[in-house]
């Protein structure tokens, strides 16, 4: 029963909701689409956050309790989490000077100050560091060994040059050598990196993305059907 009822729920709701976007009966739109789909799922999702936060808390608490490995850092994780949550939920909205308030999530709150001055710089730095790793990986692995690898290499180089002022400067220089816009034979066009980049993005890149998109859509449809008809059961977890 612990597995059968959830499977029946998925089947029933899956079949009902397959027809919901297809009908325009006001009762269905108001209740099943607007009310249940838009609001009820959000409410259920709010409680899912409690579970995920509790899971993170438990992971760190166990680490601290067992004093395993670098457990000291777990304190920092918990302190950051509790501090932000307390500032947002419990802290009173006292004025603490400089136009800032202690509690709440408003633009002038300490919660927002920490987010803007600690979380945002750290996250931006984390992402920016990937530039070094991508460059390093590209240096080690980009070799024109065959046609496919050469195409990848050349396209990446053109797009990178086409996205910086250097690309435009090269084109302008070549255009000058070519005799300007009025020249009969515009050989300098092959150095128009911005134009070539745009063409690559609009045509071959968009075409492959669309083809991959079709594949993804088919995969989503197949997975949805497998879930609805109980072929895919991994979400049930466990065996009980």
């Amino acid at each position, binding site marked *: 029963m612990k597995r059968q009822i959830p499977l029946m729920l998925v089947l029933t709701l899956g079949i009902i909701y397959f027809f919901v976007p297809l009908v325009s009966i006001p009762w269905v739109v108001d209740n099943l689409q607007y009310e249940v789909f838009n609001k009820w799922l959000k409410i259920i999702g709010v409680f899912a956050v409690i579970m995920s936060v509790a899971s993170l808390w438990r992971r760190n608490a166990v680490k601290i309790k067992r004093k395993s490995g670098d457990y000291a850092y777990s304190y920092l994780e918990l302190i950051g989490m509790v501090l932000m949550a307390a500032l947002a939920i419990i802290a009173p909205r006292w004025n603490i000077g400089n136009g800032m308030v202690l509690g709440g999530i408003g633009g002038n709150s300490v919660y927002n100050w920490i987010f803007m001055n600690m979380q945002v710089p750290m996250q931006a730095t984390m992402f920016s560091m990937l530039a070094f790793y991508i460059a390093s990986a590209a240096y080690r692995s980009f070799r024109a060994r065959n046609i496919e690898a050469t195409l990848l290499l050349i396209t990446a180089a053109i*797009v990178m040059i086409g996205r910086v002022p250097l690309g435009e400067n090269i084109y302008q220089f070549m255009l000058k050598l070519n005799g300007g816009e009025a020249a009969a034979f515009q050989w300098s066009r092959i150095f128009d990196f911005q134009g070539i980049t745009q063409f690559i993005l609009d045509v071959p890149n968009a075409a492959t993305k669309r083809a991959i998109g079709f594949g993804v859509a088919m995969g989503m449809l197949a997975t949805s059907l497998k879930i609805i008809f109980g072929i895919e059961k991994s979400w049930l977890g466990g065996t009980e």
Partner: protein
Amino acid sequence: MINIIQTTIGAILTLSIFSFLYKDNPLYRIAEHLLIGISVGYIIGQQYHMGFMNYVITPIFKEGQLIYLIPSFIGLMYLGFFSQKTSWLIRFPIAISLGIGAGYGIPYTFQASIFIQLRETLTVFSEPGITGFGIFSGVLFLLGVFTAIVYFFFSWKHRGVVGIVAKVGIYFLMIGFGASFGLTVMGRISLLIGRFLFLFKDWLHIIS
């Protein structure tokens, strides 16, 4: 004064994370764990005010819409996760979310990701006043979509004509991946420039 404090905190955290480029070290680990903690705390705050207060507390307790007790009760089943005896309860909210999401997703995916995309693909030549270059681009686009799809079609062995078409598909895919790679690199580089500007302009005032 507050500006100096906030840019200094941001700069110290930025440098702590950059220190990983040398090697894994305590400064990086401190910043990394702080980032996770603050990010989760931020989500808790947002979910409490935007989700819990807006969708649960206000409608039920202030507006008396008791109907929302039903999804709240279903959501509460997630808390069964805390005990091994009741952990099976979390299957109910997951089943409801999955069932509704999967069922609703099928016609939506058909409409948004297949029918509309297919229409846009097949009507590349229908633009008014299309030029010769436009026709060339349209043909290339169609060829790219078709050959890339054939490459992903594994019901036939990639031999003979199918093999040649699939090979052309690989070339298109490589051009697409190269473009995506180039764009990703440039995106990261612009973020990096942003961080250096923050350090040298906002914090140290070395560049104007």
